[in-house]
């Protein structure tokens, strides 16, 4: 039984992949690709899922998929045209298949009516095609392959060998079981010898069995039991469709077409925890390697060139090893992006919108840990854009826009980070309303001095929701702040920019991985800290001439005609600044995205290094302003600073306004 469950899990994982492929192929068809390769591949995906579903007795899924398969089969045979009428149905069907699959996996409610509607439209498609006049010019390669499984009758010769009976087989039981998989006729040959010559252990007969409408795979499974003790001829051989021990409804006239063209790279399924162990181990090696290098440089001042070279080589190789290990965890962001069209289609129906989604950059590779966490915020953002951003078709026409709204979802690498953009061409953010709501809810004290950008980003505040009505989709006031919190938890930032009447753009930047980080190591008051390199803009030397002290104690530094606020780390840490604080004469400029660029006073820059991120929460708790810690070459712990939230925290602490308490809690 346990094994069954294991197989089932495997089946579901496989289905996820197959469905992903299917969606890809359908999208390709949508883009005008009608080649037989794509059609075959799409058919194959549906077929494989059906096979597995039947094997595990998932009836709802099997029945639905069966109808889908029939249509796909008609499509590749040219009986049904892949065009503007059939494609939407196919897309809906693949969505529905995902839903059924999720239902089979996790239980939960199933929208029976919807399933029925989609199944009906599939059936209508299958019936409405032209008569199969044998003129299917599209797939010649299929025509010339004698499709044995489609032949109505399969005749199998069965000659028991000497060990047939001694192996415990029983001819009667065999024939009865054969009856269940479509046995139509049995002819028997041979006769009992005279009693004197009778060998009771030998079976004197052989049979010729005819099966009607039996799957070749089923037959093969059935007869494989007798493989060792009988001669069996006549079982159709085909590619390797999944084993289907149960009976399947008829009309599946399909041998799996041979795998062609569409690139399959050899791959291996490895449990994630094994890779994680490797990642951790390599992380430790990086640290040890750094320790060795440090010790070396301290104890033998350049006296040994060879050794130095070797250490350099070692460090390069270790670094390369780390990159390779991280590459194992990297996945194309496609696995998240490919779910989005379905969400959009679902929402179109619920919200009465007409929206199409354009996805690009789905091959951008991101660490698995990031990918898993991305689904939820992205879904939320899409919901938000469709509910609040894109107008109803009528409103759009009235505003002189095309009826269909467009959502553009893109991903691209930007240095050590990945940038995800979601753009809509809707009504944009209604700034007056945003300010009014923010004031009304006490989220801001005054609107004075807020730039348009500041206003747009108010929608990320907790408890903010401009939707006057609460819909089931979004508008419960848990929208964008949840997105922001989630993204920040991943070490990312989000920003929004909107043009009234023309649309809104959300930008999310995320680290490529949550396991290692490229950092600038700095020293402040004898303690070393890591500042993520992605946030560091530059380092500047301070002197009297480029510093300005305001009356409230705030220090500013002039940089190319611009004044940036400068912070003392001990202050941000909530410690008292010792009165005899050393005058630090260096600042690194950090981009906070929320408070613009700021300077952070440091004593010394130590260098730039890739560090292995370790969470504080494993043995302690998360701390605002610290995104984690790492272990330096000498074995000491260095904290990784999250400068933006340190500054935010201090701002809130200074203002001491009770309604702001929640935000950083």
């Amino acid at each position, binding site marked *: 039984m346990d094994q069954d469950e294991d197989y089932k899990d495997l089946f579901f994982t496989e289905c996820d992949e197959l469905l992903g492929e299917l969606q890809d192929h359908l999208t390709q068809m949508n883009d005008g690709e009608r080649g037989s390769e794509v059609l075959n591949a799409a058919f194959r995906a549906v077929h494989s899922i059906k096979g597995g579903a039947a094997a595990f007795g998932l009836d709802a899924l099997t029945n639905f998929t069966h109808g889908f398969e029939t249509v796909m089969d008609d499509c590749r045979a040219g009986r049904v045209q892949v065009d503007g009428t059939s494609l939407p149905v196919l897309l809906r069907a693949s969505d529905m298949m995902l839903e059924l699959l999720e239902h089979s996996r996790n239980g939960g409610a199933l929208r029976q009516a919807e399933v029925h509607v989609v199944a009906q439209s599939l059936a209508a498609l299958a019936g409405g095609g032209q008569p199969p006049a044998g003129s299917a010019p599209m797939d010649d390669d299929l025509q010339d392959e004698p499709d044995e499984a489609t032949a109505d009758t399969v005749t199998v010769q069965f000659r028991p060998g000497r060990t047939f009976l001694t192996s415990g087989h029983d001819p009667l039981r065999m024939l009865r079981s054969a009856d269940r998989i479509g046995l139509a006729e049995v002819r028997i040959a041979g006769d009992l010898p005279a009693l004197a010559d009778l060998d009771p252990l030998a079976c004197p007969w052989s049979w010729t069995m005819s099966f009607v409408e039996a799957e070749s795979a089923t037959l093969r499974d059935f007869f494989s039991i007798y493989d060792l003790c009988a001669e069996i001829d006549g079982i159709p051989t085909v590619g390797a469709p999944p084993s289907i021990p149960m009976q399947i409804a008829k009309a599946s006239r399909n041998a799996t077409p041979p795998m062609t063209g569409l690139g399959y790279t050899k791959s291996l399924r490895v449990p994630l925890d094994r890779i994680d162990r490797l990642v951790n181990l390599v992380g430790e090696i990086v640290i040890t390697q750094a320790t060795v290098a440090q010790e070396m440089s301290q104890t033998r001042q350049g006296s040994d060139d060879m050794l130095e070279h070797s250490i350099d080589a070692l460090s390069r190789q270790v670094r390369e090893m780390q990159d390779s290990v991280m590459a194992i965890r990297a996945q194309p962001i496609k696995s998240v992006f490919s779910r989005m069209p379905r969400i959009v289609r679902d929402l179109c129906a619920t919200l009465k919108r007409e929206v199409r989604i354009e996805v690009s950059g789905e091959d951008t590779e991101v660490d698995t840990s990031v990918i898993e966490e991305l689904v939820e915020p992205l879904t939320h953002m899409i919901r938000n854009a469709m509910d609040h951003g894109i107008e109803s078709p009528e409103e759009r026409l009235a505003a002189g826009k095309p009826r269909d709204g467009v959502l553009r979802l893109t991903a691209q690498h930007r240095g050590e980070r990945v940038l995800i953009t979601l753009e809509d061409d809707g009504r944009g953010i209604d700034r007056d309303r945003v300010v009014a709501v923010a004031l009304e809810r006490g989220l801001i004290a005054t609107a004075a001095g807020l730039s348009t950008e500041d206003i747009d980003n108010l929608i990320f505040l907790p408890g903010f929701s401009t939707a006057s009505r609460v819909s089931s989709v979004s508008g419960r006031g848990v929208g964008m702040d949840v997105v922001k919190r989630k993204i920040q938890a991943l070490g990312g930032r989000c920003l929004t920019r909107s043009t009234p009447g023309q649309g809104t753009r959300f930008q999310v930047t995320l680290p490529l991985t949550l396991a290692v980080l490229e950092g600038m190591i700095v020293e402040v008051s004898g303690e070393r800290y890591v500042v993520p390199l992605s946030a560091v803009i530059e380092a500047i030397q301070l002197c009297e001439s480029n510093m300005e002290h305001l009356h409230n104690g705030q220090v500013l530094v002039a940089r190319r005609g611009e004044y940036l606020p400068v912070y003392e780390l001990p202050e941000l840490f909530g410690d008292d600044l010792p009165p005899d604080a050393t005058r630090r004469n260096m600042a690194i400029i950090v981009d906070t995205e929320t408070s613009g660029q700021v300077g952070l006073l440091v004593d010394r820059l130590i260098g730039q290094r890739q560090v292995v991120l370790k969470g504080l929460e494993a043995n*302690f708790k998360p701390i605002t302003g610290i995104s984690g810690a790492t*272990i330096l070459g000498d074995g000491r712990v260095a904290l990784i600073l999250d400068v933006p939230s340190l500054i935010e925290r201090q701002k809130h602490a200074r203002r001491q306004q009770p309604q702001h308490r929640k935000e950083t809690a």
Partner: protein
Amino acid sequence: MTPNASPLTPSDAEPSRLSDSSDTRQFLSFVVNKSSYGVGIEDVREIRQWMQTTTLPNQPKHILGVLNLRGSIVSIQDLRIRLGAPAPQPVETNVIVIVQAGERRVGLLVDAVSDILTLRAEDIQPVPASRGRNDTEAMLLSLAVSGETMVGIIDLNRVMDHAMADPVDV
């Protein structure tokens, strides 16, 4: 469990070292502010000399910071402060007792480690509830009598709870 009268087998060598092996528990005892305290020995992971920690921002006084414990990051609490004494800067003779508190591992800074105590169940009593519970008592699970001295058994769950619920980090 039935008392083991037969010759020692390796598996029960540990408890049987003492005359009556049935209802005893072992504790690691240590000195904090000149008083004796203890934790169940099964919770102790290791004992190490004080070493400079990395301080954390915006933390209460008793959180001394974090240390690298063979690749994992462990927070260190000053038990002297938790047990109500003004504590000077830790020195090298101070000791960190690394304990397992639930799922977390935490280091407790103490003045010195004294002994391993084997106590019978009847030597261990609940903390008397009559007096107003101050911070120190809230930290204690029970009291134990070992010879002439009173040993306060630390409640490790309280140690962690306190750190987690601290309102200092707004």
